[in-house]
C-alpha cells in the first residue's frame, strides 16, 4: 500500500511540477506516511500535529511526529523525527531548518495549510495548494486500500449489530454511542473518526430542524436525548482502520420488537430501487450524471438525496472525498466525472415521504474493471436485505 501511494505521489509531484509536498492535516499525513496517530480532539490534534514531507525522487516520506509508535515499521529510521509544532512561533526556526534541508531556496512546494508562523518564517519558497495533488492520488484506491476499507467497514458493522441489540425505548443517544465504541474500539488498528449520529427523524419537514435550504437537516449532533417507542433514527458512524475510513448508514426503529409499518417498508423498497438503479449502471466509462439520472428516475423524478450532500461520495483517508456525485457543482461536473477502476462509491440516497418520515442508508461499492464489488453488507434490519 505504502509503495503504491509513494509511486502515485511521485507521479503527481512530477505532473504538477512540484519539488515536494508538506502536509499538516491528519488525512494527508495518514495518506502519505501510513502512520497511525491516536484519534485526538482537534485542539490537541492541531497543537501536537504530525507533519509529513514528501521530497521529489525519494522513495519514502519523512514523518515528524510525537507518536513515534504509530510510524510504520517500513519507514527508514532516518525518515522519522520528533514533532515540528508549525502552529507556534516559538521554535518555528526548527521547522524552517527542516524545510531548508529538504528543499532548495525558491523550490515549488505543495502544502495543505500554512499557519501564520509558517507564513512569517517560510517565505523563501513558492507554496502551491496541495489539494489537486492529494485529490488525484486518492481518487483511485489500490487493492490494499480497498481491503482496509472493507475491514474498517466489517468492524463497524459488527459493532453496530451489538448496538442495535441495545436499541429500546428509554435509552439515550449517547448510550448507543457507548455500546458502539465499546465494541469497535476492541479491534486493533481502529480509531474514532466522528461522534456517531443517531438522529431522530420526525414525520414532517416542519417538525424537523429549520434549515437554510428547506431540505432536511442531517446529520445533527447526538446528545443525551432519550429515545421513545417508535422513534425512527437515521444512524451514521465511521471509524478508521489503519487510517482508512468506514461509513455505516442505516435507518432503525426504536422498539424492543421493531416492525416497519407498510408505509415504512415501502420507503425502504423505494430506497433499494434507487440504489439498485444507480448501482446496476456502475462500471468504468459511466458518468456520474448517468448515475444521478438513474437514481432520480427510480424515485419518480424526485431527486433522492439531500440538498447539501450528494447521491454518492468517495471514501479513503477522508470520510468523504472525490468522487462526489450529485453535488451543487452541477450536471456539467457530474458529466465529466467518469467512473474508473479503483474508485469507491458510497451511495447514500434519502427517501422522504412527507408526513411519514423516511428511509436513509448507505451502500458502499468499489468499481472494478467491468462493474463493482460490494464493500458493505446488505443487511438492513429491521427492514430486510437488498437483492
Amino acid at each position, binding site marked *: 500500500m505504502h509503495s503504491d501511494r509513494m509511486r502515485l505521489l511521485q507521479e503527481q509531484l512530477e505532473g504538477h511540477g512540484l519539488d515536494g509536498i508538506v502536509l499538516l492535516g491528519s488525512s494527508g499525513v495518514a495518506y502519505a506516511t501510513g502512520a497511525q496517530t491516536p484519534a485526538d480532539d482537534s485542539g490537541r490534534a492541531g497543537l501536537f500535529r504530525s507533519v509529513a514531507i514528501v521530497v521529489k525522487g525519494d522513495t519514502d516520506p519523512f514523518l515528524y511526529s510525537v507518536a513515534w509508535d504509530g510510524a510504520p515499521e517500513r519507514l527508514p529510521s532516518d525518515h522519522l523525527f520528533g514533532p515540528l509544532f508549525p502552529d507556534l512561533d516559538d521554535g518555528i526556526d526548527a521547522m524552517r531548518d527542516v524545510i531548508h534541508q529538504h528543499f532548495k531556496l525558491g523550490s515549488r512546494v505543495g502544502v495543505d495549510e500554512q499557519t501564520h508562523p509558517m507564513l512569517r518564517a517560510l517565505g523563501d519558497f513558492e507554496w502551491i495548494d496541495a489539494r489537486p495533488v492529494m485529490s488525484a492520488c486518492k481518487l483511485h484506491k489500490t487493492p490494499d486500500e480497498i481491503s482496509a476499507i472493507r475491514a474498517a467497514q466489517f468492524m463497524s458493522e459488527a459493532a453496530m449489530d451489538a448496538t442495535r441489540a441495545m436499541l429500546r425505548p428509554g435509552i439515550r443517544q*449517547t448510550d448507543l454511542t*457507548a455500546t458502539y465504541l465499546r465494541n469497535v474500539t476492541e479491534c486493533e488498528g481502529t480509531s474514532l473518526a466522528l461522534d456517531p449520529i443517531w438522529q431522530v427523524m420526525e414525520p414532517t419537514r416542519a417538525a424537523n430542524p429549520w434549515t437554510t435550504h428547506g431540505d432536511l437537516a442531517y446529520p445533527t449532533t447526538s446528545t443525551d436525548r432519550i429515545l421513545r417507542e417508535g422513534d425512527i433514527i437515521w444512524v451514521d458512524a465511521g471509524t478508521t482502520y489503519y487510517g482508512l475510513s468506514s461509513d455505516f448508514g442505516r435507518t432503525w426503529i426504536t422498539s424492543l420488537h421493531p416492525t416497519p409499518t407498510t408505509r415504512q417498508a415501502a420507503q425502504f423498497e423505494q430506497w433499494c430501487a434507487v440504489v439498485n438503479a444507480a448501482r446496476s449502471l456502475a462500471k468504468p466509462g459511466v458518468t456520474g450524471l448517468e448515475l444521478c439520472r438513474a437514481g432520480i428516475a427510480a424515485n419518480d423524478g424526485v431527486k433522492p438525496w439531500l440538498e447539501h450532500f450528494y447521491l454518492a461520495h468517495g471514501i479513503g483517508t477522508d470520510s468523504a472525498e472525490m468522487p462526489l456525485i450529485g453535488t451543487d457543482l452541477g450536471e456539467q461536473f457530474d458529466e465529466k466525472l467518469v467512473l474508473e477502476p479503483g474508485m469507491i462509491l458510497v451511495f447514500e440516497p434519502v427517501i422522504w415521504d412527507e408526513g411519514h418520515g423516511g428511509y436513509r442508508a448507505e451502500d458502499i461499492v468499489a468499481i472494478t474493471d467491468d462493474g463493482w464489488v460490494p464493500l458493505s453488507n446488505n443487511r438492513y434490519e429491521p427492514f430486510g436485505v437488498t437483492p
Partner: protein
Amino acid sequence: MALEDSGRVNFTNLRTERRARLFAAMDEANLEVLILGRTSNIHYTTGARLLWRSGVFPFAPMCIVVRSTEKTHLLSCWDDGIPPEIGREDLFGLFWNPVSLIAALRAIPGLVEATRIGTDSFTPSFSNFLPTFAGTSEVHDAAQLMTSIRSVKTNDEIACMVVATTVAEAGLTALEASLEPGISERTLLSIFNQTIAHHGTPTPPSESVVFVTDRQGPVRMRHLATDRALQEGDLVVLAPGAIYAGYEGGLARTRVVGGGSSPAIASLFERSSAGLDALISACVPGGSGEDLYKAWASTGEPVPTFALANGMGVGAEAPLIGFSRGETAILQEGSVLSVQSWVSTEGIGGVLNRELVRIGSRGPEILTRSERTS
C-alpha cells in the same frame, strides 16, 4: 454529548463574556472581520454544538465575525444546536460549488467592504479566494489573538473543565476496576470510551489513554493502544480525559497491575510525584516556562523528552512548555495548565502523573482529585 445549554453553568453568560473579549481584542488589533477555520476557535466564538470529528483539517472559512455589526456567522445548514444570539439569517450553508459559497459569503453584511481581516490559518489558494468576497487579499494573524483571549478562564469556564475532569476521573475508576492480568490495552481503551459515553460526553480529547510501560529495554511513552496484554507487576499508565461543553479536563495516573510493589517501583512513584510537585510549585502568576524547566532540573531528572505542561481550555492550547519550547512563556493568572511528570528506569518501567492546574492569585490550584500512587 450532554446538552450544554442546561445544567449548573450559566452558558448564556459564558458566551456573552467570550464575545465581549473577542470584540475587545478585535478593537485592539484594529480588525474589522475574523475568518475562523479551527474547530476550537469556532466553538469558543459561537458555542455551537458542532459534529465532532477527530483530527485536524486544513483551513477553510467556517465562521465569520464582523465587528461593525457584532454578528457571528456560521457555516451550518440548520439551527439545531446553534445558540439563540446567532440568528437563522446569520447561518450560511454547506456548498461544494465555490460560486455558491462566494455568493453566500458576499451576502454577509460588512464583509465585502472589509479590508482589515484576521484569520486563524491560511492556505495558498486563500489569497486568491478572499478578494472574491472581501475588500482585500491580505490577512492578519488572528491565531495569536484567539490564543490570548482564550488563555484566562472565567469561573464558568473553570466549572466546565471541572465537570470534564470529573468524567475523566469516572473513566479512571472504570479503568482501575478492570486492571487485571490478561486484559489488553485495547480492551481498557474500549471500556474507557464506553464509560465516558455513558456519562453523556463520548468524544475523547485523545485516544492516548492506556499504555503498559516496558520492563525490558528503553522505556518510552507510547501513544497507541495495542493488543498487548497486561501482566502481573506491570506499571500501566492511565491517562483519561473528557470534553464537556467544548472544555477539556483530564489527568494521568500510573498503577501496578495486581497492586504489588517493590522498592524500585516505589522509588519511581516517589520520583514522579517529586517532579510533579516541583513543576506545580512553579505554576504561579508571572512565572515562566523557564521556571518549569528549572523546577524539573532541580529534581535531578534528565532533560525532559516530553511536554512538561501545555495550556488547557477549549482543548489543548498554548503555551507548550516542553520539546525545547516555551521557555519565555509567561504564566497568566487565571489560566490553566496540564502539567505532567514522566520518569522511568530501564528494567522496571515508567510512571506518569498529570494534573490540571489553575494559576491562582495565591498560587497553583489543582483541579484534579484522584489519588496518586505513592
